């Protein structure tokens, strides 16, 4: 059992039960693993250098993970964590990662984040999911920045819940597999570009953009997901060439089913998805470009599946309304 805090950092390992925060400190006895984690973070902690304004993110407290590190229990973040190219972060089932809202650069978005340039393994279970969310008493989208997988060796997420971020996850120039996860109450649920990405069996709901992507010549696979109740279901920003497969997804109750960015000059096809009972023409009618204009023949969703695809809610209990 353990949780601890050093200079604003809170990290810990709890084997069952929640961390109790007393005056900003988690009152638990640190475990050996926690000590190792904290020593590593302390060694990797960076302080602002001369000539760096305090509002620049370069000056924001940052921790490096350079070897294999495991998180479990409750981890509270108020800073940037970077899994370096030589590092691997393993998040154990049942781990709760909580992000404090720290707007270091004053842009209105929380700046706590996890960036992965090495490897990430986050495998929860249905009964013990991994949970990434805001630490704030009244959480809202953008309380923290993102889980970013960028030029990384790889990322694997299963049974992970991600809420209250600017981007639930961003994947760029990296291989990644996301299965049976939830992305809710974020600005962007899942965002990717130039990625070997497989996204399946996941619930992506109540975000501004469910999926936001730039294909840039490297297609991804998005199959068998529930992408519902978002402001925009799929946002194809630019350089999407139609290679990314969107198939057997339920795309229902999104105000705009598909949005094409200002610079997306090529039409796109999204065949064999269920659109909440809308016909192909109705989906096209409701879809928009970057200026809220109808996209018309810019998209083609035929054939439309007549019935929803079974996408089981990955976690115990009932799915959110």
């Amino acid at each position, binding site marked *: 059992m353990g949780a601890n805090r050093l200079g604003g950092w809170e990290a810990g390992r709890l084997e069952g039960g929640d961390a109790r925060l007393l005056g900003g400190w988690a009152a638990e006895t640190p475990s050996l693993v926690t000590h190792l984690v904290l020593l590593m973070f302390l060694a990797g902690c960076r302080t602002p250098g*001369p*000539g760096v304004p305090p509002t620049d993110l370069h000056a924001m407290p940052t921790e*490096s993970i350079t070897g294999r590190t495991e998180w479990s229990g409750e981890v509270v973040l108020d800073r940037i964590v*970077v899994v370096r*190219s030589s590092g691997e972060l393993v998040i154990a089932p049942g781990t709760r990662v909580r992000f404090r809202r720290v707007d270091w650069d004053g842009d209105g978005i929380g700046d706590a984040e996890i960036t992965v340039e090495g490897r990430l393994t986050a495998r929860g279970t249905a009964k013990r999911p991994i949970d990434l969310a805001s630490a704030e008493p009244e959480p809202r989208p953008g309380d923290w920045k993102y889980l970013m997988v960028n030029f990384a060796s790889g990322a694997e997420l299963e049974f992970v819940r991600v809420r209250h971020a600017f981007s639930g996850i961003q994947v760029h120039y*990296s291989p990644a597999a996301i299965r049976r996860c939830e992305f809710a109450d974020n600005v962007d649920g899942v965002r990717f*570009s130039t990625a070997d990405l497989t996204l399946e069996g996941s619930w992506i709901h109540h975000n501004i953009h469910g999926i936001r992507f730039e294909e840039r*010549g490297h297609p991804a696979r998005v199959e068998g997901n529930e992408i519902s109740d978002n402001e925009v279901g799929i946002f194809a920003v630019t350089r999407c060439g139609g290679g990314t497969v969107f198939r057997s997804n339920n795309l229902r109750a999104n105000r705009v089913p598909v949005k094409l960015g200002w610079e997306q000059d090529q039409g796109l096809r999204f065949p064999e998805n269920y659109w909440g009972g809308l016909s192909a023409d109705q989906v096209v009618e409701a879809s928009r470009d970057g200026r809220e204009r109808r996209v018309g023949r810019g998209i083609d969703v035929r054939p439309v599946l007549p019935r929803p695809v079974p996408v089981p809610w990955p976690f115990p209990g009932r799915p959110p309304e």
Partner: protein
Amino acid sequence: MRGWALLLVGAILSACAPRAAVRGRVMHDGSPLAGARVRLEPTNGGAGAEVRTGPDGRFEAPHLPPGPYRVEARGPGPLAAIPGQNPVYLPPGQPVWIGLQAVPAESPTFALLADAEPGFGSIAGRVLHRGRPVEGAVVSLYADESRGLRGPGIQDSFPTGPDGAYVIEGVLAGRYWVVARKRLHEGGMGPVRKGDLYGIAPANPVPIRDGQETRLDIHLVKKERDTAPDAGSLELTGTGVRGRVVDPQGRPVAGVYVFAYRNRTIGHGMPDFRTLPTGPDGRFELPLGEGGLFYLGGRENSGGSPQPGEWFGFYEGSPDHGLVVPRGRVLEGVEIVVKRVLDGG
């Protein structure tokens, strides 16, 4: 008496401070252009300077405070010359050479649009080189010139046809910097290289009016030589980094551009500074203007976003790949570790 002494000391110190200087020449259609007014305006405030070209088209402006300057030449008559790289950094010491090529300084005209969406207008015209239409040129609009009019515009035209005509429709009404480029190399992206054509509209910023079409012809000039953005040399700027590009096994990698962004988001948009490609020893030298905080990396291609299989990597000396380079210092031994994008492991 004491006040006068302080003023005198101040004047002496000011006179002894290292100064910058610029020399150059303005050409028009291959001939020197006499009587052009060359304006040098410091972008970080202070008084500018204006000099005229002599009969041989040459100009010289000595004793300038070092720093970044916006440079342009006007006249005689309806001619103007805007360098491809603006602002130009003038370091203390050795003069910087600036070659300028004058083109007709077109002014925009305006016409009503029939079916314009409220709040939007368009821009159209021809792209010309020495009076002839240019096929395959792309016209780009930029909202400001803070990033040196580099990278994709906020809106770009399709490549021009044989008549050199371009049009960009659905432009939010406002003022834009208009640039046209015709790249000869494969891919058609990245920095303008030797032999490419480019033109920065002397009328910038150009108004795009609600419900109207702005009509503007753009004249191109030929890029005479390859330079890295703002690079100059370390001897001139006195500020930068030297080092090597290596693979994960520590072996030198050739053919990699080292870049520096002032923004933490690396790989999106054009860098602020960039080297020429590394040689077989992987060594590079990156001048960094007035110094400051930079985010460093290296990549094999110089335009567009990184592609699978391409060498790409970062400066690994800090978690966010950032490095503070003080003005007047050259940091040695900086290593950029690159690997192939999406190559596993």
